[in-house]
């Protein structure tokens, strides 16, 4: 499906070295250094306002919309510096897909929602689009539910279906990385379960980074977990280790519910 760098599974997909971020005068990320493995799920947990979403949104530069922000340090996706002046932002965002907290389908048909990205990025000929739409909807486990109403408005879907549509939409761009910003926080438990199953399924092909408030969710889907607090990465490791034997006192306090 996507171009892979052969024979280099050890090279992490995303690397941050002393990465800092400022909203105006306020420094919201402090010298974050971490790596995200390729074709694995990494969860980022931490209390509200700890900078985990900010960090996620730096990876595909969604923070560019906010005026008066700046960064320091390094952040690389597949070896390409994200905040380089020569980065092709359009191509970068095509490679790094994103799923948001609230499902945000375009107010258009289900079909058009998926076809938008590939049509724009000239990844596909127009006649290939129906096939791409079907493949992505199948991939997102939504095809059977919507195949008879592809040309109806996406806004008629339930919240969980909309979120899977948003995942399908991101997949249609053939990304290598998938960023998920609390993708289940607006969904009920059943829809949440379906999304989690999907995440586990998708990690065979994609590097997935998921920000979540739900620690059970991190424990269920993530291979590795990082704990952020007050704009700093406190610790990062195998999910099992983070939840059973955290090295840091703050981490332990957070996962046992004693703060945050």
């Amino acid at each position, binding site marked *: 499906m996507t171009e892979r760098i052969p024979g280099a599974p050890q090279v992490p997909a995303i690397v941050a070295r002393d990465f800092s971020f400022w909203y105006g005068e306020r420094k919201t990320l402090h010298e974050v250094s971490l790596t995200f493995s390729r074709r694995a799920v990494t969860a980022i947990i931490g209390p509200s306002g700890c900078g985990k979403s900010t960090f996620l949104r730096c990876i595909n530069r969604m923070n560019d*919309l906010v005026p008066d922000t700046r960064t320091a340090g390094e952040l690389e996706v597949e070896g390409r510096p994200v905040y380089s002046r020569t980065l092709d932002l359009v191509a970068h965002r095509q490679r790094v*897909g994103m799923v948001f907290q609230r499902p*945000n389908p375009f107010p258009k048909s289900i079909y058009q929602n998926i076809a938008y990205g590939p049509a724009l990025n000239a990844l596909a000929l127009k006649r290939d689009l129906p096939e791409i739409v079907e493949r992505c909807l199948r991939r997102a486990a939504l095809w059977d539910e919507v195949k008879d109403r592809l040309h109806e408005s996406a806004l008629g879907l339930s919240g969980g279906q909309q979120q899977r549509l948003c995942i399908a939409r991101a997949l249609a761009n053939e990304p290598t990385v998938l960023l998920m910003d609390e993708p289940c926080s607006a969904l009920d438990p059943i829809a949440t379960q379906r999304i989690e199953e999907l995440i586990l399924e998708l990690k065979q092909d994609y590097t997935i980074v998921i920000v979540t408030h739900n620690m059970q969710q991190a424990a269920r889907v993530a291979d590795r977990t990082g704990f952020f607090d007050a704009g700093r990465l406190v610790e990062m490791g195998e999910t099992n280790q983070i939840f059973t034997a955290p090295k840091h006192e703050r981490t332990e306090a957070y996962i046992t519910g004693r703060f945050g």
Partner: protein
Amino acid sequence: MISRRALRRGKSRVMVGLMGVAVLVAILPLFLILASLVIEGASSLSISFFVNRPAPVGETGGGVAHAILGTLMIVGVASAVGIPLGVAAGIYCSEYRGTRLAWVTRFVADVLNGTPSIVVGLLAWTWVVATQKHFSALAGSIALAFLMVPMVMRTTEELVRLVPDSLREAALALGYPRWRTTLVVVLRTALPGIVTGSLLAVARVAGETAPLLFTALGSEYFSFDMDRPMAALPLVVYKYATGPYPEWHKLAWTASLVLILVVLVLNVAARLATRQRFDRA
């Protein structure tokens, strides 16, 4: 406890009642106007009124077809100029709202919005009529376009601002450049509202008389030539209503009714057209 609840319910009923009265008061003038137009004007309505030129003074019959055509042409050209400009400026002021240019544009638009239409007509007279040394329909269109731009701009701005940021983010995250995000996602989402706002602007300028008085001037003949004087419904109403003959006064009422009908038809047609486009989408 119960009495307090009853008191609350009573208060609620009183307030709802007051709101109902307020609504009635607000729409009453509309009905009064429509009613008097129909009572005074409907009796002269006939096919001939829609297809003929005015009859000479003293003869009965005749119509205002030349003015209907004139209004459609003058307002059509004004819309073709004013709506795209207004929409573009509105999008700019909303999507780039922090810039100094957006602030200046907004300020200028507000001033222009409050400018009496006769002043705008004078401007068109100075720029077009005085330099060309003859009256023309085009000068009228320019004056009307000037009136439309700030109206369309302000509604577009408000509606574009209502498009949720999450939609912009969705498009940007798919790799849409900002200009395409604005055109394809933001504009498309806000389009139904922009159409409504533009129609309101069309309806308003279709009834403007003052800016046409010394630009399009008016005429008794059919004309497609934008470079010559042209008739328009408001001008016909003005002429007939201020004229000395009772038949003219009657014609003025009927022409007013026709003007309202034209605006109504335009509204309904444009709304149906856009609704169909969205059902397919």
